């Protein structure tokens, strides 16, 4: 493949030797591109990893899950603090369970929750306490590591028994030894440990292992003193009937609450998909914003390249004059400097890509989140870096090609 009389391979070789003359300058010039591309790739990758991680975690909770929250419909879909809204009652939950209008729901779990101080004699921790019935385990796919979950008898008799998550066990019984049968104080009341759940993994925010469960009636009547529910969790019969389930439950509750207008509902129903979509779009927006900032650094990098190329052209004015005297055409000179610029940005793009992928890999290892590399992002990075090279190298290359040989040769 040739341009004029020179093979592209020759032009590239010549450009490379010109660039390696001053390695420090070449390195500094490409730094802007490396950082720009690297951060864009890392951010996009981390953003996608976060989205995937959220998806996986929400799906692990059960894709047939519907959540009824008290309070008006919000676009956020974020669960309000415990106690936000008092419109859901145990009778609502029982109605959903028994009503002939409901054909798509297979399990109903009425729930209350509040953070409480839990302690043994020597250790304590502040965790979320869920008041639950036996259906909670089924709806939320909880399995037992030892002992048993809350039973209907526990709930009926208002017994003071508690099921602990594995993190709570670690915090309260650091010396080991089974916690079953031991006593813990929740707030000021004494409860007996009757079970430990299997770990669901996860860290930090909404850690499913850092929770304890007590019977619903005990929670409502004895511990919290509230007659309303924090929420009702429902299991639909299959993923296909989710929308029907939402409608059925919605209409039932509207009529029970004596409301005619759905927009006036004093509750909201969310499926996994709704929560997923919200979380996805939130992270999506965030990622886009950060990537935009990273793109600005890319622009700055491009300006840096143009700067260096202009300096190079000035420095090599005599050389350009000589080449023209020996027969180089304008297009020869133009192409030579354009290729040098593109090599700079392309190399910067490759390095940046490696840096971005490496960073994303490290972070995913440190936070146990998935490692996602989008091939589209990589192609984009390469394309953009070459584009930046052409865009910002154009002016210096033009300037070089327009030099008059005689002026150039005179240049000191």
């Amino acid at each position, binding site marked *: 493949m040739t341009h004029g009389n020179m093979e592209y391979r020759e032009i590239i070789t010549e450009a490379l030797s010109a660039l390696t003359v001053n390695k420090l300058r070449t390195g500094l010039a490409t730094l802007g591109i490396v950082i720009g591309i690297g951060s864009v790739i890392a951010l996009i990758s981390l953003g996608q990893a976060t989205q995937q991680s959220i998806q996986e975690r929400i799906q692990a909770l059960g894709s047939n899950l519907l959540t009824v929250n008290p309070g008006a419909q919000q676009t956020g879909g974020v669960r309000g603090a415990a106690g936000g809204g008092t419109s859901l009652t145990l009778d609502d939950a029982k109605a959903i369970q028994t009503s002939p209008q409901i054909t798509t729901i297979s399990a109903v779990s009425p729930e209350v929750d509040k953070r409480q101080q839990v302690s043994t004699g020597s250790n304590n921790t502040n965790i979320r306490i869920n008041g639950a019935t036996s259906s909670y385990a089924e709806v939320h796919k909880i399995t037992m590591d030892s002992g048993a979950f809350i039973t209907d008898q526990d709930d009926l008799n208002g017994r003071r028994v508690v099921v602990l998550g594995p993190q709570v066990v670690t915090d309260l019984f650091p010396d080991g030894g089974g916690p079953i049968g031991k006593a813990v104080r929740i707030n000021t009341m004494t409860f007996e440990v009757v079970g430990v759940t299997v770990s669901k993994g996860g860290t930090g925010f909404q850690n499913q292992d850092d929770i304890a469960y007590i019977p619903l009636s005990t929670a409502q009547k004895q511990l919290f003193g509230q007659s309303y529910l924090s929420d009702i969790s429902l299991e639909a019969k299959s993923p296909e009937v989710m929308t029907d389930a939402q409608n059925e439950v919605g209409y039932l509750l509207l009529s029970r609450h004596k409301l005619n207008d759905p927009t006036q509902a004093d509750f909201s129903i969310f499926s996994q998909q709704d929560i997923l979509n919200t979380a996805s779009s939130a992270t999506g927006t965030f990622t886009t914003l950060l990537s935009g900032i990273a793109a600005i650094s890319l622009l700055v990098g491009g300006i840096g390249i143009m700067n260096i190329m202009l300096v190079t052209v000035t420095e090599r004015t005599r050389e350009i004059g000589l080449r023209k005297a*020996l027969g180089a055409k304008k297009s020869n000179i133009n192409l030579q400097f354009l290729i040098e610029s593109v090599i700079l940005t392309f190399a910067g793009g490759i390095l940046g890509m490696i840096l971005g992928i490496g960073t994303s890999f490290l972070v995913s290892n440190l936070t146990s989140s998935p490692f996602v590399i989008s091939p589209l992002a990589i192609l984009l990075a390469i394309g953009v870096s070459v584009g930046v090279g052409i865009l910002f190298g154009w002016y210096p290359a033009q300037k070089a090609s327009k030099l008059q040989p005689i002026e150039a*040769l005179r240049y000191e």
Partner: protein
Amino acid sequence: MIKISHISKTYKNEEVETKALDDVSFEVKNKEFVAIMGPSGSGKSTLMHIVGALDTPTSGTYVLDGEEVGKLSDDQLAEIRNKKIGFVFQAFNLLPRTSALKNVILPMVYGGVPKEEREERAKKYLNMVGLGDRMENTSSQLSGGQQQRVAIARALVLNPSIILADEPTGNIASAQAEEIMDIFQKLNEEGHTIVMITHEPDIAEHAKRIITVKDGKIVGDSNKHRQRKVKIPMSS
């Protein structure tokens, strides 16, 4: 084959007009060895730039091998500089940090010589100027005289119609200067046309014809002098 007719060149620097060449005319035929001599500021460099298609006159015509140079496009001028003219500069103008071999190859790259031929031809001319054992040296590893010899090999490599030398011995010690003049004389005996610019009469006398320039005009044009032949043979 060089026909300069009524060439004038005026430089405008802000408000001051300088007339570098004033209605100059002459001809150079094939196989001539011409020296253009004059003091600095006489216009001889300007004349060389016009002959070398590096600059255009303000008025007048320049015909090279039957082609009127003033009418050519930029790309066509580049072709002429590549194939018809071989430059030898006072400051050598070799590419730094580049071997002698690669320097001599450079015109062939722009001239479309196939890759396989280039090295062979370059070596042939480097041998001819006596630098067969210094082909990989860069300019910092060569003396002034040696660098100029590389420049001469470079000028010859595409078999140009004229060799145009601008003060070729200006930056060289006198012993080596004689060697350069010897090369030029031998080249001329082999049939090359050489036009040389100089301000030194001693150097000018190595040519067969001397055109004297002063204040932008030709004031002398003769071959009556006795051509000064080089006594020291060229070292190989």
